[in-house]
């Protein structure tokens, strides 16, 4: 599958070089077809979002709109509380990020660096949350929100996501990797554990905090089931759940639907383009697409 000459170009004789080129051409051809399959639906969505209704439903299809219909985009905002969707989604994502970064890193520090009684039990509890599919928790979580009178509110969107077993586990790994000597000096100066955590350790696990924050934002942005369950008034929906409603509302207004979808995914795509490495690493480490 992997030919030696490609891995070691310095050793290639002219003869093998001739053999390499068609092979890597074929590889590129395969990868480009694959990439088109991945990107094609996005391109078609964006093209449709600029078409008039007649263009979008024309058979055979019209590929480029004669005049870009920007009105599709403005109509998304006028016919739905789309601006609220944005605000709600951002508040939910940022609220969760702040909570998780603070609460998880504190617990992770204590679990990794202080040998207090009950530490193993608490770590076991954290691990046990991993074993359970998230849907198992939905009915009790929903009832709790209802008892607090939080249904249809921003608190409901944020609340359970403020805490995380995954984040604790991930940050614990980062804290464990720091050498013991670091805290010794601070201990001699009489610093307590919170001061050591806040002033010395936290700045050293910045990359871990960033990876966790990005994952949390992505998951919050894309989460569907929880916002769908706790909030049903349109002005309290997130983009993810709001789009589901958009789909029902404009069953046949395809250009407008595509405009809404494009608007909803744009921020994450831009963020992905800028912070690609962290996205990919974070998701690879977490081994999970959501949760």
């Amino acid at each position, binding site marked *: *599958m*992997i030919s*030696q000459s*490609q*891995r*070691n170009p310095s050793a290639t004789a002219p003869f093998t070089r001739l053999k390499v080129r068609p092979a*890597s051409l074929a590889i*590129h051809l*395969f*990868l480009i077809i*694959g*990439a088109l399959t*991945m990107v094609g*639906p996005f391109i*078609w969505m964006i093209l*449709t979002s600029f078409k008039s209704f007649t263009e979008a439903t*024309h058979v055979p*299809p019209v590929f480029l709109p004669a005049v870009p219909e920007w009105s599709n985009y403005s109509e998304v905002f006028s016919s739905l509380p789309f601006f609220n969707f944005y605000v709600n989604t951002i508040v939910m994502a940022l609220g969760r990020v702040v909570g998780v970064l603070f*609460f*998880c890193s*504190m*617990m992770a520090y204590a679990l990794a660096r*202080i*040998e*207090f009684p009950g*530490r193993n039990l*608490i770590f076991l509890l954290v691990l046990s*949350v991993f074993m*359970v599919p998230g*849907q*198992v*928790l*939905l*009915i009790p979580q929903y009832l*709790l929100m209802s008892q607090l009178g939080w249904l249809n509110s921003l608190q409901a969107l944020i609340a*359970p996501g403020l*805490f995380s077993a995954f984040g604790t586990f991930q940050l614990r790994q980062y804290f464990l990797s720091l*050498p013991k000597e670091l805290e010794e000096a601070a201990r001699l100066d009489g610093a307590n*554990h*919170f001061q050591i*955590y806040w002033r010395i350790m936290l700045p*050293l696990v910045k990359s871990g905090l960033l990876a966790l924050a990005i994952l949390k934002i992505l998951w919050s*942005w*894309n989460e*569907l*089931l929880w916002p769908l369950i706790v909030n049903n008034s349109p002005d309290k929906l997130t*983009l*993810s759940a709001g*789009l589901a409603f958009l789909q029902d509302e404009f069953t046949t207004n*395809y250009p407008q639907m*595509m405009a809404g979808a494009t608007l*909803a*995914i744009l921020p994450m*795509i831009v963020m992905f383009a800028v912070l*690609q490495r962290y996205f990919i690493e974070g*998701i*690879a480490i977490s*081994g*999970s*697409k959501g949760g």
Partner: protein
Amino acid sequence: MSLQPISRRHRLQTDIRTRFRFKRSLSKSDLFWAYIMVAPNLLGLLIFYIWPIFQNFYFSFTTWGDFGKSAWSGLDNYKNLFSDPEVLHATQNTFAYAVMTIPVSMAISLVVAAFLNQKIRGIGLYRALYFLPMVTIPAAVAMMWRWLFNGDYGLLNYLLSLVSLGPVRWLSDDTALYAVVLVGIWSSIGFNMIILLAGLQTIPTVYYEAASLDGAGATQRFFRITMPLLSPTVFFLTIVSLINGLQVFDQIFLMIKPKSTAIENTQSLVYLFYKTAFIDGDKGYGAAIVTLLFVIILAITMVQLWFQKKWVHYD
């Protein structure tokens, strides 16, 4: 901060020192701070994640009437569960989805990952493009695919018509599940590819060079070197993919209209759980359905852990 390599003797000394001091210095202040720092997240996890596990289990033994009143009903929900054709059908759909999606997606991802592992140009761009569906809101994915699948104006049927095939009613009773599977494969390739590529990159090149010198062909190298050394990665992916795949909900909910007849052939266990608990308000039965899902996932993961000895190679 530079960390100089510490001599072994020095490290031993510090070890003894810290261990000795540790016992002495786990002061009241240390304990105090440990519990203070653990408390917020522990409380949150207990309230939102751990206590609900038990609550849900309890609810699965209750029946919910009007106005959210519930009463203990013993094993009734479970008795109904095992004689309910809808639950059986949803279980079949869930497994059909996972069994069709995971191997195909992994096979395609493996080929892509192997190609990207050849140090070719543009690897970063390819990786990003294949990864795109992972950062896209599921509802947007569903909308773009429903538009492609559209029976009258969809691009897919147009492309098929060019080779005089179709039109296919993609989201109708017989084909809807395959359409959902197709989208599932499309969405998961990026993730699988990233993990497999990371696995491939840990295989030392010397193995391939040595095998080539011994005259091993590409096929032999793949099956004798790549597959065994990649098996821990494949194993990890299988576990994660099955856990995720058995929880499929988003695409079914978003692509298939609840009133269409295709929903019977596509609804997964999580979809049925959502419908039962939150649309019909039958939280007791819903709790039983999701407990069933939990048991299925747990059992399958256990079986995989058990069987890994047979095929997973660890050095």
